[in-house]
């Protein structure tokens, strides 16, 4: 018995969740869909999980494409593609009622009763056997992902010319048969008769906008690497660690083209030390890691503060502590970023909140490091690092330029002047009065020579803190998404931005008024945040980390300490997964229920 198509549903915004095993190539289909969406002026965002094991294990890739601002990687899927019975069983509940289930009928037997109850349209496609048939049975199961791409292209009315061009770009450099087979699989998938499905569901690709602009589709790690190049970074050194590694792989390959180098060092300590050596040489330099590696680098971070050397330190966060959850997301390194190191060691901490941010904000991070002669810790996370987003092709006129210019001679030079901003003068600079500077981690006088003089230590400590105060005055005050006063302000940092903004929009549709504010500059905080917070009765800081005894996550605790406002409270979770919009809304609701009286001040 067949469910009668209720009516034609026209949508222009859809979430596709593909579930299979890690070797099925669903990541590459997802990436191609995202790229195609970007090329069709569609907004797109993705979310993926890969198991930490080398091969095998369940894996998903989710693509959200459509019009307007696509904010989060989507909650419930409109379309679920299940390669195996376990994929079907594990993910059916993420498919919305009335959605579409595409499954490999060679491997999956769905519960038709349940599907009818939930008004889910079942689209059985014998992906495995048809792919084997098309490709002559040689490629085992390889190619079924491309077959699926063909099927999805049909459903989403993608321009086949563009799809084929993408395959040509992807496989054109390989053996001729690879491209030929992939085109055959694609056409097979496209031609497969989907029956009523196409009558039931119609995806209308958005018209190219008037102000049409080129979009780039990349993940946060890629954006960060290319942003670093745009910022002028010409030397890097680091040790591989998931999920940071992709950034260093890109830079290792790319930097020589710009006259630079990125080297893999023997350990994390050597990574930051080598980067500091290049920074001392006057070259814009970086290192990076994920949580455990940042912990190892902490001694040298304190040195960079003391010696006043400019340095970019990236942390693509993962679940912790210790080896923790290497391929999951968590925002639990904020405290480490703020405090890694010994002594009073003020440093800058900046967090990217979108893939686009990873490109543009890292340029700002490098500029700040060099202008203020200070280490800047740049936080990304696993979700941001691995998800694909489309964003406007950057205008390279704003490129910071090459990261090194040989300085001309200086008449005289104080390495650490007390009455002005430290400007690092690299070796190679002739100093006319013949007095050369020492760069040092010992407390020092203005020329960099050791001094344990009590007044000097107090003055130098003050000097190192003051530059962050100066920076704070120049930082932009974050925009408020929604009304600028009211009951509830949701505050976030990092990769949750889209989710919080969508939570505000969804709450508005349901008659609730929330506002949201996202903090990119965490140390120093921009001036003016306290005044904003006072305009709301509740300031709920949403984070993926563990609550302290006050229920506050790491940013919430920082904001409470800084602004002494009891209305600042935490909404936290620690399941290693990105927030879903409905989850945030449920937690905010629950907070309101358990804290019935608006917090008074």
């Amino acid at each position, binding site marked *: 018995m067949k469910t009668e198509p209720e009516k034609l549903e026209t949508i222009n915004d859809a979430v596709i969740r593909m579930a299979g095993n890690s070797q099925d190539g669903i990541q590459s289909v997802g990436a191609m869909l995202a790229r195609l969406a970007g090329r069709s002026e569609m907004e797109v965002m993705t979310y993926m999980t890969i198991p930490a094991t080398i091969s095998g294990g369940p894996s998903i890739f989710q693509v959200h494409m459509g019009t307007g601002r696509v904010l989060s990687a989507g909650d419930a899927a409109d379309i679920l593609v299940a390669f195996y019975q376990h994929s079907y069983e594990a993910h059916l509940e993420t498919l919305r009622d009335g959605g579409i289930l595409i499954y490999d009928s060679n491997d999956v037997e769905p519960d038709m009763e349940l599907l009818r109850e939930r008004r889910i349209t079942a689209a059985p496609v014998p992906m495995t056997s048809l792919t084997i048939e098309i490709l002559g049975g040689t490629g085992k199961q390889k190619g079924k992902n491309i077959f699926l791409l063909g099927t999805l292209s049909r459903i989403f009315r993608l321009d086949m010319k563009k799809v084929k061009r993408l395959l040509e770009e992807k496989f054109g450099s390989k053996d001729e048969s690879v491209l030929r087979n992939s085109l055959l699989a694609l056409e097979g998938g496209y031609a497969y008769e989907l029956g009523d499905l196409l009558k039931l569901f119609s995806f209308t690709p958005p018209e190219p906008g008037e102000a049409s602009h080129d979009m780039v*589709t990349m993940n946060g790690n890629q954006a960060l690497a290319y942003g670093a190049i745009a910022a*002028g970074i010409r030397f890097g050194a680091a040790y591989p660690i998931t999920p940071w590694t992709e950034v260093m792989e890109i830079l290792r390959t790319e930097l020589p083209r710009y006259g630079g180098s990125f*080297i893999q060092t023997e350990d994390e300590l050597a990574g930051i*030390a080598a980067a500091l050596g290049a920074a001392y*040489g006057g*070259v814009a330099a970086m290192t990076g890691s994920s949580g455990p590696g940042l912990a190892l680098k902490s001694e040298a971070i304190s040195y960079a503060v003391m010696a006043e050397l400019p340095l970019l330190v990236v942390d693509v966060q993962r679940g912790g502590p210790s080896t923790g959850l290497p391929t999951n997301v968590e925002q639990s390194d904020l405290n480490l970023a703020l405090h890694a190191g010994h002594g009073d060691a003020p440093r800058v901490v900046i967090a990217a909140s979108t893939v686009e941010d990873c490109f543009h904000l890292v340029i700002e991070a490098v500029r700040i490091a060099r202008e203020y002669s200070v280490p800047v810790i740049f936080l990304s996370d696993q979700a941001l690092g691995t998800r694909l987003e489309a964003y406007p092709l950057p205008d390279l006129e704003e490129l910071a330029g090459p990261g090194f210019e040989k300085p001309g001679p200086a008449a005289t030079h104080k390495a650490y002047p007390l009455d002005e901003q430290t400007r690092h003068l690299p070796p190679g600079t002739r100093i006319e009065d013949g007095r050369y500077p020492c760069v040092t981690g010992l407390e020092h006088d203005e020329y960099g020579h050791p001094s344990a003089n009590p007044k000097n230590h107090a003055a130098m400590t003050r000097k190192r803190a003051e530059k962050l105060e100066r920076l704070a005055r120049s930082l932009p005050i974050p925009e408020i998404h929604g009304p600028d006063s009211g009951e509830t302000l949701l505050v976030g940092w990092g990769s949750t931005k889209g989710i919080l903004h969508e939570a505000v929009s969804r709450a508005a549709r349901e008659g609730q008024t929330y506002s949201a504010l996202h903090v990119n500059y965490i140390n120093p905080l921009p001036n003016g945040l306290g005044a904003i917070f006072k305009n709301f009765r509740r300031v709920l800081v949403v984070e993926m980390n563990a609550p302290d005894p006050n229920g506050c996550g790491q940013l919430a605790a920082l904001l409470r300490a800084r602004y002494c406002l009891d209305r600042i409270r935490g909404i936290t979770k620690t399941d290693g997964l990105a927030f879903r919009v409905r989850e945030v809304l449920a937690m905010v609701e629950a907070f309101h229920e358990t804290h019935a009286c608006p917090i008074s001040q």
Partner: protein
Amino acid sequence: MTDKTAASSATLGRADLKADKPTWCPGCGDFSVLATYQKLLGEFGWPQETIATLSGIGCSSRFPYFVNTHSVHFIHGRILPFATGLSLSRPDLHPVVFIGDGDAYSIGGNHFDHCARKNLRLTVVVMDNEVYGLTKKQTSPTSPLGFKSKTDPWGSKMTPINPTKKLISSGASFVARSIASNPKHLAEMMRAAMAHDGFSVVECLSECVMFNAGSFDSAVPRKGGEFKLVPDAHDVGDEEAAYALAREKFPGYFGIYYQVQRPTLNESEASLRPESPIRGADGSREQLGATLKNFT
């Protein structure tokens, strides 16, 4: 080592290179290393601003404050990777590292192997006094068996590291051994090391008169010891022969143990770059623009 600008620079004298008054104890072997370095800088004729004197932590690592060049006093154990970054990113400079046995063979021991693998253009002088002097007598990785210190009141039970053996096995392309009490020999070794195109290390015994007095007397003729030079017949390119020298009982041989020419990482990294490195903003913009187009 080559330097095109050397000719334009006036020869550096001791006065040009003097900075803070050394804080070492009177009689410390480190004075001799400092004087030798200053003398050699005059000889090499490198422009003063292109010299970078680098150190780690310890008595010997106070060195940079006493030399008037661009200089760095870094953290304990990590000056070798620091120098790696400087050497690779600024081929126009002359970095020279001065460290003690703690930096070289204990807290930073791992980095020696990896600097050697890279065969960086870099010279390292290890001022080995076989004791932790700055912190007033604790056991060092080169302290002999039975050495009594504040951390080994019953005498050290750990087999000391054999520096030359370690350096040869790490793959350093230049390994020499000298002693601070023989400045003529030390100058000869440091001169050869600084002229070597690759990773060069001089292991220099430098007596701590305060906490390890007399430790190197057996190598000092005026104290009744024997200063045994590496035999003339020794082939510096023969690794096995170098190990044989390194196996000799203390005080052992002094001279160049091992020297070979291998491509430096500086060269191989440079070879990855296009013939005309894109340094200018316009070139970078063009290259990056083309790359980003691949993502559209």
